Structure formats: structure tokens, C-alpha cells
């Protein structure tokens, strides 16, 4: 079923939804950007349609709900370990005790991203209890995406069309807003607030400006190829690319003592980045991948090769946030294409012996 809403209708709809659900959506934070008087679009809880940023790509992804930037796992007292209860850091700690389900508004690429997070947290080894706890409460609202943003390459990654796990869709249309409703239990709500009903098919991107060629196979020899060398001096290892990525999942444990004698404290996990110093450092100080080019290889190959070897599909969903955020103007998309060129060249030189990885 599809519906058309005007501004007032959307206000009413969101306000009513926000009574039954926590609503987590991209929000324009005025002046919260890196530079003076630059806005930032970050996910947060909303209770009003006017707070939702429908038009811009979010700078940081929805993943901060499912895998918070900083999440307390346990509290320690003298002789007890108590599991932390809340859904974590996303938004306001005051929402910790809130047990309502969560509606998350996201675009097709990010919905594909959820599948990647699930793969890591639910299917790679034992289930992650903390992830499971929040994941079971999350439902999705698809934000229709009529046209590509800068740096997006969802079409080439096959993530431009949303998977079917959303409750309803939302996008601007000539009449105001158009929604396709998949969850029948929400129909009465839409009947109440819609100005009309008509067939609605959520818009999706069919053409990006950026094109990426993902290599089918990457010979071992190319993992030490000169492709990566330029990043030794270009990359500064800040990790922004991975922190904005909707599919990066790494974390580091932090144990903290509140008091001098160390008897009370907490264990938390914080998002980690394979691009930032210390990621691979073991107790005693030894570390792998000291060069930024090696870190770039580790990250890029994971996104377009290693993950696929393990799970059968590529990790990267082509949202292009990494290219949006890099302060050194390093393009992940360009890097993947350079890698593919190098693979082609290698294949041409080793014709006949290519059957190896196929």
C-alpha cells in the first residue's frame, strides 16, 4: 500500500510513531562539523518530523545505534560484575532505560550495511549478546533515494536497491511525502494521516557519477604490490574512513577503574580502526602494519575481497562516506579501481596460469 502525506500529515505520523517507538534518524546538527559554522548530519533520536534530515547523506552512519562508538559492557564492584543495560551511547544516556523498539530511517545502501553488521556480530563465531539485544528491537524505515550523492557508488556495489526488510518507506514527492507501507499493522496509522493513497515504489538510485570495478580475485602477489605505496605518504592514519563506514565493525576493549584503589570500574568497548595506530599492537609493543599503505591494503582488501571470501558477498556497500570524509582526499573508490587495474595487468602477464584462484 502507498500513501501521500502533506507536511502536517508527516508531523502527525512521526509524532505518533515516536510515542510507540524510539525513532533514530539522520539529524542536521547545526555547527557541529569539523570547521566553523559547518553542519554535520549525524544519527540521533527524534520525536518530531522537523528534526529529520531527509535530503542530505548523513556524514556518520546509523551503525552508532547497533555498535555504539563507546559502549559500557559491564560495571564492576568489589566482587560483582553487572552487565550494562542500555542500548549504549547513541543519543542521550537518559534513554538507557527505554525498552521500546527502535525505528531507524536509512537509505538502501545502509540497509545492505545492516546485513554486514549482522554477519559479523551474529554469524561470525558465537552471537554477540549486546548486539543481539539491540538488534532484536530495531525495525527499518527506508528513505527513498531518488538520486545519487557525490562519491556514492551503490549501483556498482549492487546496494542501490533496498533489501525487503523495511516497515515503510519515506521520501519527498511532488505532493509532499510518499510512503510505501509493507507492515500492515501500520496501515491504520497511515490511513489517519495520509492525504491520499496511491501506489508508491520507493525511489532508488540507478546511476552514480562514481564507478568502481571490484576485482574478482586478488592474487597474493598483488597484496604487496606498489598499488599501496602511495598511501604510505598520503594517508595520515586518522581512521575517519572506517568510523563513518556503515560496515566497519572493529572494536577495542577498555577497562576503567573509577577509584584510586581500582576496586570499582567498568569494561567498555569503543569502536576501533585498522587505520589508527595501536590497532594491531600486542602486549609488549610489537605491531603489524606500521606503514599506512599496509593499513590501506588491509582495509580495502577486506571491503572488496576478504569479506567476500568468507561470507560470499562484498562488505563495501558503496555509500562513499569514506571518500566524503578523508582529509587527505584519498578516494577509496579510486583505490579499488587502481587495484583492479593492477589485477588486470597481473592477469595479462600471467595468462594461462590464471585458473589458480577461479
Amino acid at each position, binding site marked *: 500500500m502507498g500513501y501521500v502525506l502533506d507536511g502536517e500529515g508527516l508531523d502527525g505520523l512521526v509524532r505518533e510513531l515516536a510515542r510507540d517507538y524510539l525513532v533514530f534518524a539522520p539529524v542536521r546538527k547545526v555547527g557541529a562539523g569539523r570547521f566553523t559554522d559547518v553542519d554535520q548530519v549525524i544519527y540521533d533520536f527524534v520525536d518530531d518530523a522537523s528534526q529529520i534530515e531527509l535530503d542530505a547523506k548523513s556524514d556518520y552512519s546509523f551503525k552508532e545505534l547497533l555498535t555504539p562508538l563507546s559502549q559500557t*559492557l*559491564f560495571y*564492576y564492584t568489589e566482587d560483582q*560484575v553487572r*552487565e550494562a543495560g542500555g542500548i549504549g551511547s547513541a543519543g542521550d544516556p537518559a534513554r538507557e532505560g527505554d525498552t521500546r523498539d527502535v525505528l531507524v530511517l536509512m537509505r538502501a545502501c545502509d540497509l545492505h550495511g545492516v546485513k554486514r553488521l549482522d554477519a*559479523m*556480530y551474529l554469524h*561470525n*563465531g*558465537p*552471537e*554477540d*549478546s*549486546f548486539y543481539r539485544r539491540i538488534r532484536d528491537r530495531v525495525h527499518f524505515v527506508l528513505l527513498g533515494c531518488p538520486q545519487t550523492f557525490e562519491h556514492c557508488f551503490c549501483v556498482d556495489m549492487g546496494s542501490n536497491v533496498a533489501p525487503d526488510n523495511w516497515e515503510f518507506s519515506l521520501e519527498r514527492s511532488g505532493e509532499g511525502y510518499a510512503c510505501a507501507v509493507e507492515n500492515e499493522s501500520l496501515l491504520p496509522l497511515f490511513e489517519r494521516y495520509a492525504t491520499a493513497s496511491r501506489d508508491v515504489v520507493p525511489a532508488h538510485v540507478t546511476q552514480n557519477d562514481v564507478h568502481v570495478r571490484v576485482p574478482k580475485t586478488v592474487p*597474493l602477489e598483488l*597484496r*604487496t604490490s606498489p598499488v599501496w605505496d602511495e598511501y604510505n605518504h598520503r594517508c595520515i592514519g586518522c581512521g575517519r574512513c572506517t568510523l563513518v563506514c556503515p560496515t566497519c*565493525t*572493529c*572494536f*577495542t*576493549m*577498555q*577497562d*576503567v*577503574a573509577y577509584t584510586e584503589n*581500582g*576496586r570499582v*570500574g567498568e*569494561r567498555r*568497548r569503543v569502536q*576501533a580502526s*585498522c587505520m589508527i595506530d595501536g*590497532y*594491531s*599492537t*600486542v*602486549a*609488549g609493543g610489537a*605491531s*603489524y*602494519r606500521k606503514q599506512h599503505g*599496509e593499513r590501506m591494503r*588491509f582495509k580495502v*582488501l*577486506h571491503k572488496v575481497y*576478504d*569479506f567476500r*571470501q*568468507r561470507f560470499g558477498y562484498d562488505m563495501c556497500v558503496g555509500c562513499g562516506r569514506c571518500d566524503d570524509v578523508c582529509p587527505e582526499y584519498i578516494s577509496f573508490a579510486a583505490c579499488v579501481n587502481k587495484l583492479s587495474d593492477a589485477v588486470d595487468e597481473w592477469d595479462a602477464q600471467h595468462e594461462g596460469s590464471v585458473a589458480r584462484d577461479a
Partner: protein
Amino acid sequence: MMPSNNPYIPFSSKVLKVIKHTEKEYTFRMAFGGEVRPGQFFEVSVPKYGEAPISVSGIVPGESVDLTIRRVGVVTNEVFEAYEGQSLLLRGPYGNGFEVEHYVDGECVVVAGGTGVSPVRGVVEALAASATPQDKHVIVGFRSPNDLLFRDDLARWENLVDLILTVDGAPEGYQGNVGLVTKFIPGLPLRDPSTAQAIVVGPPPMMRFSVKGLLELGLAEENIWVSQERKMCCGLGKCGHCRIGEKYVCLDGPVFNYTQSKQLLD
């Protein structure tokens, strides 16, 4: 500690015994009744300080596991404060470990350096108890005579298997072998290197050169097994730190066949 389905919650385990090898290396014998095999590891959890992955260095089935710990960081520093009768928090065991049965028939070479002896200790015990202990060649290297671990075991193994104990360097007058473990690989008296099994565990350069030596000796790649050590924050395939290519050391390892591990590039 409350029992929980949450894999991040550690369980409490009593320290049955503390064995001091050197100033920096202790073995903690921990009460543990579950299933475990050599080469697997536990996360030793010290609230307020953190967790550290420690491999199992000895097993008494249904009773205890030994954790040999080198004091190198904040967590292990804290663990060293533990005494007999006290409890530590553990998670695990994690990882695949060694399939001991695979090594007991026929010829086998074990090359271990430093704390790398821990994960293979159980394997060596099985080799010593096998029908053909004389076909089992164990090369164990330490930095210096003062750094020796498992002295009692070494003395016992001496009489059971073909044991080569060596140190990288020693003061003048030292009676034993001096030199890197790799020095002793070419001289191994293997009857049929092409069918012999080998296990290599130790610091990365030592493993690289030992494998090279074994291949030169005629061992087959698929008969060589290595155990990898990487930074880990969870042991559950989540934190990402131990990933190498498509493999997770905590889930798919730490024991890898060399045909696989040679494909892995950090």
C-alpha cells in the same frame, strides 16, 4: 559470578598452583573441568585492567588447565599478583587448538621458541607417550639459560623424545647447545621427511625461518602446522583485531596448516 549466556562475561576460576619459571614467566594452574585441547587459549580477564589471550600450556582433563603467562603489560602485571587459593576470571577456551592424534603416529618435528612452548607442551606430552617416542624430534629454544620454561618437563622429555634444547646466547662455560632453533633443523635425523609432520610455534621471524628450514629438509607444506598470535579483544570473531585476510585467528586458528597460513598476509 552469575552464570550467563553472554559470551563476554567471564567465569571465576581458582588458582590451584603458581609455578614460577623465571621472574617474568609464571604458570598458573587454574581449576577448569570443561573440554579443552592444547593450542587453544583463554581470555584472562582482570576487571579494571583488561583481558589478555593466554594459550593453554597444560591440561589435566576434568580438573585444571595451565596458563603460562609472560609479564609484558598491565593485565599480566595484575595477574602476577594472584596467589594460590585466589580466583581469576576467565573466558574460553577459544580457537581450534592442535588435534593431538594427528601427530602421534610416524615421524614428527616440533619447533618451539620461548613462550611458544606453552601451546605445544600438551602435544609434546602426547608424543612422549606415543608408541614411537624416538621418532619425535623436539627443538626448544630460549633466549638464555635464565629464560628456560618448564625445566622439569624438559628434563623428563630428554629421556623420552629426541629433545634438542638450545639457547640464543649463553655466558661462557655454558654446557648446552647455543644457537637459534633453525640451526638444528638441517641435522634432524628424519627417515622420510616427505611424510613427517611438523609444528612450529614462536615469534614471527623464528617461525618464518623454521618453516623455511623444514621445507628445505624436504617436509611437505601440508604437513607443517603453525600457531599464530595476534592482538585480540574478544576471542569471539567480533573485534576484528586478529583478522588476517579472510581468517580470524581466534575462530579459524590459532593453529593453521602452512598451506593456509602462507596465504595470510598481515
